[in-house]
């Protein structure tokens, strides 16, 4: 299949227009395979991707760009029980998941 997504780059454009990710700690809820994650994680100081789908998280981990490995983490958890203490993140992204 020759699927192309968002050839115009609108998603990236709007995401960065709506939040400044520079040196921010970001939590992404519903990160899946990390398709959206790669679009802002390079600017962040820390990015955590949350998802319930273990297979998708495995793909995200494998596909993680090498230069992001030190600041990018994935964890399997429900959004109703986020395994972090209060006030850990500057930005949360609900990625196609509400």
């Amino acid at each position, binding site marked *: *299949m020759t699927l192309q*997504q968002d050839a*115009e780059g609108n*998603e990236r454009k709007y995401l960065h227009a709506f*939040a400044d990710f520079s040196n921010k700690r970001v939590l992404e809820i519903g990160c899946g395979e990390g398709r959206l994650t790669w679009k802002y994680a390079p600017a962040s100081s820390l990015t955590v991707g949350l998802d319930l789908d273990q297979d998708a998280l495995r793909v995200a981990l494998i596909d993680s760009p090498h230069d992001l490995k030190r600041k990018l983490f994935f964890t399997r958890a429900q*959004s*109703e029980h986020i395994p*972090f203490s209060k006030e850990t993140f*500057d930005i949360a992204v*609900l990625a196609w998941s509400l």
Partner: protein
Amino acid sequence: MVHALSEIRRVLIPNGILIDLRPLLDRWSIEVVSAREIKETGRVQDFPLGLADDESANKSLTQAGQNGWFNRNREEYFSYSYSWDTPKEMEAWIEEEWEGFIGMDEETIRATRSAWALGDADTRVRLNVKMLITQWKVMNEP
């Protein structure tokens, strides 16, 4: 969903930002596209399950706002396109990824296949998804 928003608020700093990015059902348009022309061949059908899903998400965010957890700062719509080499690839994708949420009627399927078959060598099929992006700011506790 409201519980999830409460959790998100808990882990965000005061004045932290929540970005809600999601597709909204709105009878997304289907086009047959080549370098020479763009032809709309129909629109997908929105199914009750998908519409209820959108409604539920909207209600949860409204509730979070009414609870004083978040303040809506900014909101916009934009288009997110998917495109395929052939109509059959699109039909298979809709069936697999959006089963129960959206579908295509026979007339749209026929019109899309026909326009694609008569198109140039570079002709593709495109689905334009309506996206909603909203910026919410954590409201500080009194």
